[in-house]
């Protein structure tokens, strides 16, 4: 775990922990209720990967932009996206953040600066670059961040986006969550062993860094440097963090039994849980008490309960809604 964490403000540390915990509890609540068949859309849970969303978004204000892809719940929440609107969206309700048209794979919260997430791999990368570009043209001082899985770096549009971001020295930060798999496909069938994303991206003249995606402090610190770089006008950054998705690619279950990865590998990563490990440290540092954790869990659980109630009790969009918003006026 990050070495410099001793010098960090304890309140900040707790905030990071609790924010991770909140994402975890939301995702687990979704997993638990998914079998009720009321959330009728694909969901890609981020359990195990919470640290990256939190460590990165800790440096952003609502003014800054974030975009994401299919596995976006954590990013949306970390950026301050409205939980109720997210759950309502997953339930297909008119109170959802996209009025029910998008489901889990299409989250948005403009008030929070979360510009949107969509599930075509790589699809939002150039759009985030465009948001940074538009923002730069308008003379604003926002940062844009785009989260992506490591498979997205295999799409050509990733390289194209990196090149343009570098050319225009855009304040955009590419955050890659390398969880070793694309659906059930390991890295070995997609990239040669010699491939090195940092070297590639550096070749475009871009600031890069990488680290342990389960260590929120390390992520926080690396993002701090990247954000500093971007806010100074020095251009984009690419951050890659290793991590692991605990549950199945899409859906609420575990799937270590089906053969594409081993139970051992999973357990190994589970031991490195970004939340419990960090909790341990904070307790050892005497920054955190059991009671605080308990109370926070209670508070978050209540919030989640309320948000589910909101989602479940919200109405579905009326039929005529179907025809609205094809065009903007």
């Amino acid at each position, binding site marked *: 775990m990050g070495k410099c964490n001793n010098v960090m403000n304890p309140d900040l540390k707790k905030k990071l922990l609790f924010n991770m915990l909140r994402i975890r509890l939301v995702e687990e609540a979704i997993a638990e209720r998914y079998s009720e068949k009321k959330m009728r*859309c694909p969901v890609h849970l981020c359990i195990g990967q919470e640290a990256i969303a939190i460590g990165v978004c800790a440096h952003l204000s609502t003014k800054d932009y974030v975009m994401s892809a299919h596995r976006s719940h954590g990013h949306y929440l970390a950026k301050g996206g409205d939980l109720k609107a997210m759950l309502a969206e997953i339930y*297909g309700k008119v109170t959802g953040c996209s009025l029910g048209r998008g489901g889990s794979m299409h989250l948005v919260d403009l008030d929070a600066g979360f510009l949107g997430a969509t599930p075509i791999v790589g699809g939002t990368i150039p759009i985030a670059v465009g948001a940074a570009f538009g923002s730069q043209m308008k003379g604003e001082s926002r940062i844009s961040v785009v989260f992506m899985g490591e498979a997205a770096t295999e799409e050509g549009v990733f390289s194209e986006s990196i090149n343009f971001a570098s050319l225009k020295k855009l304040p955009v930060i590419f955050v890659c969550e390398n969880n070793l798999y694309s659906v059930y496909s390991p890295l070995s069938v997609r990239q040669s062993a010699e491939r090195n994303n940092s070297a590639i991206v550096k070749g475009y003249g871009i600031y890069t860094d990488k680290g342990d995606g389960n260590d929120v402090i390390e992520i926080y610190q690396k993002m701090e440097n990247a954000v500093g770089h971007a806010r100074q006008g020095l251009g984009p950054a690419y951050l890659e963090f290793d991590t692991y998705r605990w549950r199945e690619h899409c859906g609420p279950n575990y799937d270590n039994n089906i053969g594409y990865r081993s139970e051992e590998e999973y357990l190994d990563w589970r031991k490195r849980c970004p939340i419990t490990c960090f909790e341990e440290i904070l307790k050892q540092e005497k920054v955190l008490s059991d009671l605080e954790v308990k109370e926070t869990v209670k508070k978050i659980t209540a919030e989640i309960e309320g948000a589910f109630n909101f989602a479940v009790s919200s109405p579905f969009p009326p039929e005529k809604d179907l*025809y609205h918003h094809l065009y903007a006026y």
Partner: protein
Amino acid sequence: MEREISYVKAILEATAQSMAEDASVYIMGLGVPDPKGIFGTTLGLKEQFGNQRIMDMPVSESAMTGVAIGSAMVGMRPILTHQRLDFILVSLDQIINNAAKWHYMFGGKMSVPIVIRLIVGRGWGQGPQHSQSLQSLFAHIPGLKVVMPFTPYDAKGLLVSAIRDNNPVIYIEHRWLHNITGIVPEKIYTVPLGKARVVKEGKDITIAASSYMVLESMKAADYLGKDGIFAEVLDLRTLQPLDRESIINSVEKTGRLLVVDGACHTAGFAAEVMATATEKAFGHLKVSPQRITYPDLPTPTSPALANVYYPRVINIINAVRSMFRLPGRTEDELGIKHDQPLDVPDKSFTGPF
């Protein structure tokens, strides 16, 4: 002889038998060798044919389409799969500018025998980027062949034909057909590309449809028959080259045409079928040809909206009835029941994908 298997198994069998008979056939796509095996359509192939011929790939659809093309030019016969049709959009340049034109633009010197399998998503909130039906786009590109099998029998026979064909073939499956079953001979056989099929004979109206919409049309035809309207259901099977003759023959017989196309309205393939019929069989038309399509909208995710988005049996019935100047009926009146939610095809489908 009368073996019944699923559409998924039919595809699997066609693939396995084609690979056994021709060492140049290989299949690649995201997840092809994974434990889910493209909804089961590639399960067991890896064990039978090895990792080289049953291969996963990087999430680089554009280059991988080019790779398929290049390998086809030098003698291989790749099958490229996409778990959703929507993912092909990143690779359209390779398909339209290269695969479709290569044979023609180089004066017939080379050919590009590739099959691209696309699965149209529907239901369980697949939403705007996971349930597009873009058959019309492909059908508009000279040099491509476009097939949309409806029965397991055709799924197998058309896939074998597609693999043996020396041209790029876009093979479109509908996710909601995967679990239907039908009689499928065990031996390898072909169904010719470019031939429609009358799946139900009738004298009063031609309902021309493709893929999953044939199923809906057949159900509608059953109900219509009870009210004395005998619809002929024509399964187009291949959109390009289109079997115009069968359309014309049927319309000449029935004098009426309803096209049911699972795709958006404007510039959809339904228009082509209507134009073909009016162009060539105008004198036989008793009433104006009509079409049932999806609205000109992206697919919404919420079941509440998706259920309105997708036309269903009752819409087909009433479109036909209005062509006979009969008043519309309700599902209740006709006794049409939905024993499961409208956003799943059958009980086996429980999401999330």
